[in-house]
């Protein structure tokens, strides 16, 4: 995705990470975008009605929490590491800890282990209190384009 890497270079020049989300149709549709106005790279999923998975509680759909944790990991890798390619997700395991109410969800990611070809990333998402995460995830990404299997 050279478009995203070009946008990454432009976003770095301006210091505005939010521009990264504009290049990804799914991120725009979901209203998931990175922000770095606190000095820490965070990813926010703005609440909107189509995120709801349970109308009685009400609660945000678990699938969307997995999706935003995955996006948070990708934005973190793009912004915080010297990546030469767009990371390709291999797998992700999401733990659901609490039900997420009809409010914005914020996520932060960190690299647990950086290898030459593979990186292991941890991400957590919360709403009102960072000490009470609604979901956490571990994911693996391939980070070297020429090492990816031809199908990826």
């Amino acid at each position, binding site marked *: *995705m*050279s*478009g*995203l890497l070009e946008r990454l270079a432009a976003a770095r020049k301006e210091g505005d990470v939010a521009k990264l989300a504009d*290049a*990804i*149709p*799914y*991120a*725009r*549709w*979901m209203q998931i975008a990175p922000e770095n106005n606190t000095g820490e790279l965070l990813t926010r999923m703005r609440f909107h*009605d*189509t*995120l*709801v*998975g*349970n*109308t*009685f*509680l009400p*609660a945000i*759909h*678990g*699938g*969307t929490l*997995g*999706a*935003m944790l*995955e*996006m948070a990991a990708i934005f973190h890798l793009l912004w915080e590491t010297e990546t030469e390619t*767009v990371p390709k*997700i*291999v*797998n*992700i*395991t*999401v*733990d*659901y800890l609490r*039900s997420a109410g009809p409010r914005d969800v914020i996520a932060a990611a960190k690299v647990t282990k950086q290898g030459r070809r593979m990186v292991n990333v941890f991400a957590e998402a919360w709403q009102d209190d960072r000490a009470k995460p609604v979901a956490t995830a571990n994911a693996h990404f391939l980070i070297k384009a020429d090492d990816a299997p031809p*199908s*990826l």
Partner: protein
Amino acid sequence: MSSGPNLADRDQRLAVFQQWFSDAIPHNKALGLKVVAVRRGFAAMQLEWREELVGNPETGVLAGGPLTAMLDGCCGMAVATMLKEAAPFATLDLRIDYVKPATPGQAVIAEAECYRITRSVAFTRAFAHHGDAKDPIAAAAGTFMLGTKGQATRPHMAGAVAKP
């Protein structure tokens, strides 16, 4: 044995599950998830390719997120087919292996199986593919906590899905 009444039963069952697992769940409805098969311990859904679900605009390949939401929903529906009576439950964890990118423009089918259910936990696995389950796009394993708080948003399974 006439197949007429069985087909009518099947269509009615699909309509019930379509209502409860897609139309009544805003995110599933927004994705346009279509329930294509349901029986005891098994559920299948279909997701049409759309531009706004794309992760990479240069290739048109779907993002991981829509597949995650679909596999979560499909595994949950497989759990619901195993319940003797309507009761709320929640996803405990979900693992997804992305084994091959989805082909741009093609619909994705998810097939989930609930292979074990206990008093507290239900165990599921699922595959997503383009029509050939032997050539998957993604594989998933999900566990669900049963008897969680909240109101059941599910139809009464004992009536909706006959035991074999």
